[in-house]
């Protein structure tokens, strides 16, 4: 069933050197994420979940082990190739939305398509379509500062999804939202996951996300403590 694997991490470790002191942020970790999964990586602060997601996304390099994403070995890629790889295969959702404030909602989403060389006409159509899907039709010309936190996170989700990536990595996506808004967003992502088969990997310590995810991986002190599938 290897062809269904989106992420395959084997013996991935990360050690930071702080002066002469070495900090093991991640001990050798194995993790496989299959297409269509809705997985949460949970753990307390300092457990290594952020480091793990950074390495999976190619934003950081592992000290040991190897990562395959969408069937490609990432460790041998240059910075430029990693940028292209993220552009083509990964969608990001950040805790603080991280939209570009000088770009409108439409332009924020369009930017990802622009990077991929999509034609202006198609970019416009896809932006409209994705805004419809996240319930923000009519907000295309607004600037992020003119939206609520929940709406901004919807834009971030739309930006992550618009290019149809193999996986969406979400870092504490509900941390800055009230529980009702956070729950509604999770429901929306779950629908996209079930409806479109989109793969999600969350980093979280929000119990609600853990409950709504279909698989829960817990980390502690840089090691996988548990890995369980839920119904």
């Amino acid at each position, binding site marked *: 069933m290897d062809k269904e694997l989106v992420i395959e991490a084997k013996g991935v470790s990360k050690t930071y050197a702080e002066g002469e002191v070495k900090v093991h942020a991640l001990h050798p970790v194995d993790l496989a994420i299959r297409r269509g999964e809705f997985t949460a990586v949970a753990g307390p602060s300092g457990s290594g979940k*952020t480091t793990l*997601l*950074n390495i999976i*996304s190619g*934003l*950081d390099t592992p000290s040991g082990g190897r990562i395959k994403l969408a069937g490609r070995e990432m460790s041998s890629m240059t*910075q*430029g190739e990693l*940028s*292209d*790889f*993220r*552009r*083509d295969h*990964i969608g*990001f959702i*950040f*805790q*603080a939305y*991280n939209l*570009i*404030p*000088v*770009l409108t909602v439409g*332009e924020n989403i*369009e*930017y*990802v398509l*622009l*990077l*991929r060389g999509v034609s202006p006409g198609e970019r416009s159509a896809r932006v409209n379509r994705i805004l419809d899907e996240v319930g923000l039709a009519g907000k295309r010309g607004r600037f992020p500062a003119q939206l609520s936190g929940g709406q901004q996170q919807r834009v971030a989700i739309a*930006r992550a999804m618009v290019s149809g990536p193999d996986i969406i*990595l979400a*870092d504490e996506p509900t941390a800055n939202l009230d529980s009702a808004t956070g729950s509604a967003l999770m429901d929306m992502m779950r629908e996209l996951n079930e409806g479109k088969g989109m793969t999600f990997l969350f*980093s979280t310590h929000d119990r609600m996300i853990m409950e709504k995810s279909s698989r829960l991986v817990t980390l502690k002190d840089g090691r996988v403590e548990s890995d369980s599938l839920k119904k």
Partner: protein
Amino acid sequence: MNFYLKLAWRNSLRNKRRTALAALAVGLGMAGLIFTDAISYGMLDGLIDTATGTFLGQAQVHRRGFLDTADADLQIAGGPALLRQLERDPLVSAFAPRTLSFAMISSPANSGSAMLYGVDPAAERRVSRLARAVSGGSFLAEEGDYIVLGSLLAETLEAGLGDKIVVTAAAAGGGELAQAMFRVGGILKSGSRAMDSNMAFIKFAKAQDLLNLKGGLHEIAVVFKDPAAAENAALPFWREYGSGGNEAKGWPELIPELAASREMTAFGILITAIILSGIVALGITNTLFMSLYERMFEFGVLRAVGTRPARMGLMIVSEAAALGAISAAVGAALGWLSCRLVGIKGLDYTGVDFAGVSMIEPIRPMFRPEQYWLYPAALFLFTLIVSLYPAVYAARMNPVKAMRKSL
């Protein structure tokens, strides 16, 4: 508009106060350069105009060696023929024949030495401003033996209009002393101390007679249709009129101090430009880095979503281009405004000698097209060059460090 240019433009206007201050600082630097250029060249232009327009002419023809000795025997070879040739010369706008000799000038009260010029008043009006500089009497307009004295020379001689003056000079053909009496017909007040204290003018024909020149002449002052011709050493004019024992020289050769001053001015402006460029470079680099540090997180996000390092650098260069364009516009506007304001009355240094020439008009900024295309273009280009440092920094930025709290 291109997406990245739009992004750069909006980012430039994001912190309007900072952008305005940076553009003002850089623009002021450029305005200073435009003003320095305009006032320097304005001063030189005024001096050159004074030097060539008051009496010298833009070029002169002499017998070789005459300028060193003022020997009355060194008349221009084939002078009358050259005058006829100059009448037909398409480069030449006007010319005036002259005689020139050292002379002792005596009044009943005093005596002094001077350069005695024999001039054709009608021809001089087309070549020089002598006639306009006569403050009392006329410029040899009346029939009879009249002399025009420099105002300071007249003071020395204690001579006024109508007074008798005796001129003694060495004539050609052996150096016999020749003497003649004149009445003061005009007082010259040119504003140039050298002219007003050392020059006297009599009619050309009378001078030829006095100096026993037999129809000869010592100097031809020339004005060109295009003043730039005086500085164009490649023109055949210099060979044509500088042959047969004669020499033809443009004003840069006749007043080398002034030509050297212009070169020094150009060098001074270059040094000013380099110093200002250094200040501009620091200002722009600082502004870009402030903007970059402020948006570190955004740059991290842009890298995370797949922006290539080179594209990140290009974004910074684009922002620098926007800042450079604003600064160049501000600088050109401020430069133009400062030149206009100072140009209303000019800077009054009249009477001050510079490079051997007296300033007789206030210094006014001089417009040169380069000020409004070369300097802004150079500023824009320079902005792009100095932006490469922050651009490389942005391109090499580690996205994880940039985002810190992110993934």
